[in-house]
Structures are given as C-alpha cells and as structure tokens.
C-alpha cells in the first residue's frame, strides 16, 4: 500500500511538473533532398484523399445519426440489398486507388533507382552507435551520442539538441549524389534522416543501399529507427551538409588526423595517458552495457568489477574486445591507441589490477 501511494505520488508529481517546451512539428518534413519533397507531396495527396472520403462517409453517418432517430418519430425503412450500389462502391474506390498508385509508383522508382553516384559512404550500425566510412577517401570514424546528452538524461535542464547530438558528425557535400551502403555489425538497425527521406534497415551480414542528393547546406538530425536493444533510443544521427570546398578541406583534415593517430600508435604511452584516454572511449562505447561504474547488468551484460578477464591475461582481454564474443560486438574498427587505452582503463579502473596494454600489443594481437 505504501509503495502504491509513493508511486501514485510520483506520478502525480510528474504530471504537475511541466519541464521543457520546445518547438514541435505536426506534419512530415518537406526535407532538403531531391526526393523528399516528392514524398511529402505524395503524403499530402493521400492524406487529402482520405480526408475527403472521411468527410463524405462520416458526414453521411452523422447526418443519419442526427436525423434517422427513433426519438424523432422516424420509422425505419426496410431496404437491405442493392447490387447497383454495391458495384458503385466497389468500383469508385478501385478508381481512386489506381489514381493514387500511379504517382506512388513513379516516386518509388525515382527514390529507389540510382544510375550513378558521385561518392559513397558506408554506414554500419553498432549497438548503439554508428560507424561511417568513406571508402574512396580512405577515412572512417565512429559517431556516438554526445556526452552532453548522456549527462542530461536525469537532469531537468536539457541541452537544445538533447538526444540529437553526436560526438562526431557525418559530413557530406551539397548537390552531390551520395550512395549509402548500409549494414550492421550485430543486430538490425535502421539509418534514418527525415530531412533526406532516407530510412533503410541495416542488416547484419547484408548490405542495403540508399542514396541522397541534398540541395541545401545545413545540419540535419535523425535517429535509429529499428529496435536494436537497450540503447536504441540513444544512437542519433547528425549530418553536416557543407559546400564542396568545405567538404574537401574536411577530408584533408581527417586524413591528417588519421596519420597522426597512426604515429601515436607506435610510441609507448604512460599508464595515466592510457587511462585518461580510455575513460572517454569506455563511456562512449562500453558503458551502455557494462555501465559507467563497471557494474554491468546481471544476466545480460557482465560486470567489469572483479572480472576474470580484466584481471587475467591481457591476451584474452585483447581477443574479446577485438573479435567480440556472443552478444559482445567486435571493436576492431577502433584504432590501436584507442583500443589499448580502453583495455588499460578496464584493467586498471573499477578496482581491477590487470596489466597495462600498449598500442603495440594491440597491433600484434590483430
């Protein structure tokens, strides 16, 4: 009873507190791609057709409800069959449907068929983050929920783009046909940016494709659209669409960063450096399952504290992080220095007493 009262109290408190009000939308976005406007128009066309049918049918019903009532002394008619009427209201809907199917088929073929792309981005869904690779440019990175959103989950004061901000954004050039190759590493995800009118399932072991040509520079946000486990609601997508020049500059910058990271993987790091770097990588990549304090979730996700792996031989720890095991995904997409950092962090934090792992150990363990 007492628990029930507490719960009722909690719910009443929740109802009475109005936290945050932000601008809301009522309708589908028109979007900024060459296709999204057509899809919006199609949506509105079908909506209005339904609206008009609804007005006619419900109008007839309400007219009947208001006038054909016993309290007004109306005597019931007795008709109950009419082949003509049945044929009419079978035929007219068929014609309406055909009229809707023609533009729908056109837009569909336009949206699905791409002759030639100007560039390609590979999108890989992970529990619960996105990986973006530019195979032609030779760059790639992970994109996690921003720490600012993660920290604000239990705060009243939420940042402006709460749950719609990432630590590293996808960058695309404007007015360019971009082909997305979409896949997943563990379970099914779906990559969705409403403004692009692109939503495509990311299936593990298979590659789907989608494409977009964005016509306006800007920042566009989306989310994973297929239930993919615990943090399905916490793997947003943020895309910066920039001018072609700015994109070229960005690519050059990414290549320079990549070279720098490769250089740092060959030097020997101090334990403090590794732990400091590892903590942020752990929070972004591992804490979703194993929890920020390393306690895990019994029965589903093993704890880091008192772990036989974190306190055991480094080779086992390297193997499970690089190659995965069962529900634990492989993290081979992370760089050597980052992997060494996160493994060291796991072995030294949470009261563990495992050995330090250097980037060179990761290189040889791959």
């Amino acid at each position, binding site marked *: 009873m007492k628990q029930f009262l507490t719960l009722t109290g909690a719910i009443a408190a929740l109802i009475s507190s109005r936290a945050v009000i932000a601008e809301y939308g009522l309708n589908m976005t028109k979007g900024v791609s060459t296709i999204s406007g057509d899809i919006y128009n199609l949506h509105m066309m079908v909506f209005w057709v339904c609206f008009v049918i609804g007005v006619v049918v419900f109008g007839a019903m309400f007219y009947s409800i208001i006038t054909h009532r016993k309290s007004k002394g109306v005597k019931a008619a007795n008709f109950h069959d009419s082949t003509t009427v049945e044929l009419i209201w079978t035929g007219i809907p068929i014609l309406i449907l055909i009229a809707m199917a023609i533009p729908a088929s056109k837009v569909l073929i336009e949206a699905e068929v791409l002759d030639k792309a100007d560039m390609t981005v590979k999108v890989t869904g992970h529990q619960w983050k996105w990986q973006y690779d530019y195979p032609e440019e030779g760059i790639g990175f992970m994109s996690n929920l921003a720490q600012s959103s993660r920290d604000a989950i239990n705060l009243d004061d939420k940042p402006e783009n709460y749950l719609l901000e990432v630590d590293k954004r996808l960058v695309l050039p404007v007015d360019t046909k971009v082909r997305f190759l979409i896949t997943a590493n563990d379970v099914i995800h779906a990559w969705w940016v409403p403004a692009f009118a692109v939503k495509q399932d990311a299936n593990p072991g298979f590659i789907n494709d989608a494409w977009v040509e964005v016509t306006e520079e800007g920042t566009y946000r989306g989310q994973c659209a297929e239930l993919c486990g615990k943090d399905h*609601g916490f793997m947003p997508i943020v895309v910066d669409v920039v001018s072609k020049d700015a994109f070229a500059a960005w690519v050059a910058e990414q290549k320079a960063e990549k070279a720098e990271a490769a250089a740092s993987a060959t030097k020997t790091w101090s334990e403090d450096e590794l732990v400091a770097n590892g903590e942020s990588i752990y929070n972004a990549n591992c804490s979703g399952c194993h929890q920020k304090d390393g306690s895990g979730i019994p029965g589903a996700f093993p704890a880091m504290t008192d772990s036989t792996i974190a306190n055991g031989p480094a080779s086992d720890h390297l193997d499970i992080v690089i190659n995965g095991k069962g529900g634990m995904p492989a993290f081979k997409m992370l760089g050597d220095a980052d992997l060494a950092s996160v493994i060291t962090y796991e072995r030294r934090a949470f009261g563990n007493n495992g050995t330090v792992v250097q980037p060179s150990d990761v290189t040889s363990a791959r």
Partner: protein
Amino acid sequence: MSTISAVAAHDDHHGPEKGLLRWVKTTNHKDIGTLYLWFAFSMLLLGGAFAMGIRAELLHPGLQLMDPQFFNQLTTMHGLIMVFGAIMPAFVGLANWLIPMMVGAPDMALPRLNNWSFWVLPFAGAILLSTFFMEGGAPAFGWTFYAPLSTTFAPDSTDFFIFAIHLLGFSSIMGAINIIATVLNMKAPEMRLMDMPLFVWTWLITSFLLIGAMPVLAGAVTMMLTDRNFGTAFFDATGGGDPVMFQHIFWFFGHPEVYIMILPAFGVISHILPTFARKPLFGYASMVYATASIAFLSYIVWAHHMFLTGMPVAGELYFMYATMLIAVPTGVKVFNWVATIWKGSMTFETPMLWALSFVILFTIGGFSGLMLGIVPADIQYHDTYFVVAHFHYVLVTGALWGIIAAVFYWLPKWTGKMYNETLGKIHFWWAMISVNVVFFPQHFLGLAGMPRRIPDYSLQFADFNYISSIGGFAFGLSFVLFAYIVVDCIRNGKPADSRPWYSAKGLEWTLSSPAPYHSFNTPPTRAEILEESQHS
C-alpha cells in the same frame, strides 16, 4: 449426507457441477466462454498496467522511472499480452458463448478439446510472465521479436518465451478446429451457410486464418529455438542464414494475425447496428464475400511490413498494390454499415454507441493503414509513432471496441440481468474521448519524426507525449469503471427479458435469459431460422 448429494448430482446431470472444480473440468461452451472472457479481461488489465508504465516513462523527456532495458521489456510484454492474452482469448470466449446459440446447437462440437484449449492459456501466460523474474529480465525485443536481437542478443528467458508462444499457438489452433467443426457440423440441419449470422461467418473465416497462420509462427519460434540452442543458423548471416527471412516468416503469420483480431469484431458490429437501427443489415452477401476477400488478401500482403528491409523495387510495387487492394473490401464493409443505419430508426443504447464509434475510429485506422501502404511515404512513416497510432486505432478502437460492444450487447443474455445504462454511457464517453487523447497526437509525433520503442525522446516531442500520457492514464482508469459495471450487472442488475433489445434478431434471443446450460436441445426449424435472420 453423501448419498443425498450423490443423488442430487445425478439428478443434476445436465447442470453445472458444484464447486470450483466445475471450472476446471467443465466441457460446457458457456462455462468455457466465461473462463476465456475473464482470463482475457485480467490480461487486458495487466497489459494495460504495462502500458501505464510505458506512458508514465514517456510523460517527460529523460529517464525518470525505469532503465531502457526494462522499458523495452514493458513494450514487448504489453504487445504480447494484449495480442495473445487479451484480444485473441476474448474473441474465442465470445465465439464459445455465442456460436452454438447462433447456429442452433446444444454445445461446441469438441467439448473436451475446448476445455484443454482454454486451460493451456493460464499456464502459457504464467510462463510468459515469469520471465520478468528471471536473471536478465523478460524478453526485450518487441512483440515482433526480430532476429538476431531475439536470438544471439536476447536474454536467457527467451526460451521460456518460445515455449509460451508454442502453447498459445496450440490453444488457438485447437480453438479454431473446434469452431470450424461446430459451425459446419453442429449448425441446425435447416440452416444453410448463407443463413448464418455474420458473427458466425466472420469467426468461421477467422478460424481458417488461425489454422493457416499459427503453425507458421510455431515454425518461426522453433527456428529461433534451434538457432539459440542447437547451433543452426536460420537467421544468422555468418552461418549462411538471413535475418530478413525471419521477418518474412513472422509477417506471413503476422498479417493474417491482424485480421484474426479484427474480423470477429466486424461480425459483432454487423449484429449491433441492425438491432438499434431497426433495419436489416445492408448487403449481407457482400459482407460475407468482403470478409472472405480480406482473409484471402491477408495472406499475400505480408511484406508491406518490411518495405525498408532492402526489398527489390518490383517486390515493393507488388506489395504496395496488393495492400491497397485491401481497402476495397474493407470499404465495402464500412459503406454497408453506413447504409444499414441510413434511414433507420436509431436509438443509442450503450452497445450502439460502441458500434457507431467503432465504424468511425476503425475507419481512421484504415486511412492511416492506406497511407502506410504507399511505399515512398512509408519510408518516412515506418517504425515511427505514426505506425503506433495506426495499429492502436485498429486494435483498440477496432478489435477491443468490438469486444466491449459485444459484452454490453450480449451481457443480458449471458447473465440474465441488465447492466446500468447510465453508467454504461458514462463509461463509453469517458473511454471514447480519452482513447483519442492517447492515440490521435501520436500521428503528429510520428510525422514529426519520433521513432517507436524509445524510452526517451528529444525536446520537440515533449508536448504531444505529455498529452498522450495524460490521455493514457484516463483511458486506463476507464477500465475500472468497466469492471464495476459488469460486476454490478451480475450482482444487482434487474432481470432481463429473453429479448432485451426489442428489435434484435438472432436465434440466441429465442433462448431464455440467462441462456440455459445446454443451448438448443432440439434444432430450430427453417421457419424459426428465417424469422430470426439478420438479413430479411
């Protein structure tokens, strides 16, 4: 003493057994119908409680009440309990109560099978619910349990979920066999197929859907079981399988399933509207043909749930056209209902209010269904709250509305007592307004881009989620009043006539209220059947 009761029991051979064992051992269609209905109602309250938890978490942005894993367990169990525990058993309960009375039979054709198919359910439900208390928690992969989230990445309790689904499937298949056997073999010899009331027709067709679809579901969960435990790789690409194949198999069951849940409701509505419009059902034959067409089409449209899985364009076009085609027979049904009330002489007792609002609200769900069938637009709608709004309009204000309408309509026949009409109307308006406050704003949420199955959301979705949650609490509370009205009717209701709705037609109204333990000892004659026909 014991001799006396033994004699009494012998004399009472054709009446119900005394004591609680009556309900365990019963083979009587009315007793079993009652068991089904109370079981379904308790599962409705439980599934509703899960929904209250979901709406409470979604009241404000942020995570206030639960962690995301538990939220996923709630959405999963809410869906499973409502579909397999509440809606389906409630319709089987209605079928048990009504079909023998409607076709002039003494009882169901296979009474012992009937007992078994009910008593499997509480155990299946208990197994399913027990997973909440297991290490790793209950299944958290959604009621559609897509692989590999439900295989490699699922908690250990998933094997219990699989076993529960198997048992629920057995129950449904046995129930369906029983209904087919009853309708085809036990109907009065003088009753022709095209004399049968629409509730009987819709259930007969639904039974064939059940027999076709449930074994496919059993196949899907069996493949999951072997993938999880015996090293097969049906749904695992690394072993040559395909996770999308799971979705094909699931939806080959899943799409007929949605019609399993709605066709009997169509039947119910087709009984109630003529009664309170005092006019025969319009287009009886076309209603039967439309139901059969919907059932047939339901088997060939399954992949419209999967437009974004990477289907070839030709496949998308085919499934779009086939899906749009369903609008035609469904439209025929709606038009026939409108024509039934047209120029009638209507009164608005509680069952009529539920039936009329069913027609309007179900049609709104049908419109959003048509919109979802348009593939390019579905790119934006898919897996958003637009879909959530759509299927709650067809399942809550469709299937559940049909069940509640049926309860009010036939309650006097079942209990021999009349429910409180004023309370019935208050309950209707309360539920009807609140259900729209819950689900209508979800259309806007979906169009504005809120994905389904998320425990927390960004700030632009806060307002409509708040409204939807408030409506949800009000709607949930309305079922307390519903329970009170039913219990009050059983305990304190005024005695009801054998034909409490003066204008009602149907063989069930020729029996006394409450209906005798064995419905028809002698089959009704041709003249009686025609006299009680809905469509003459």
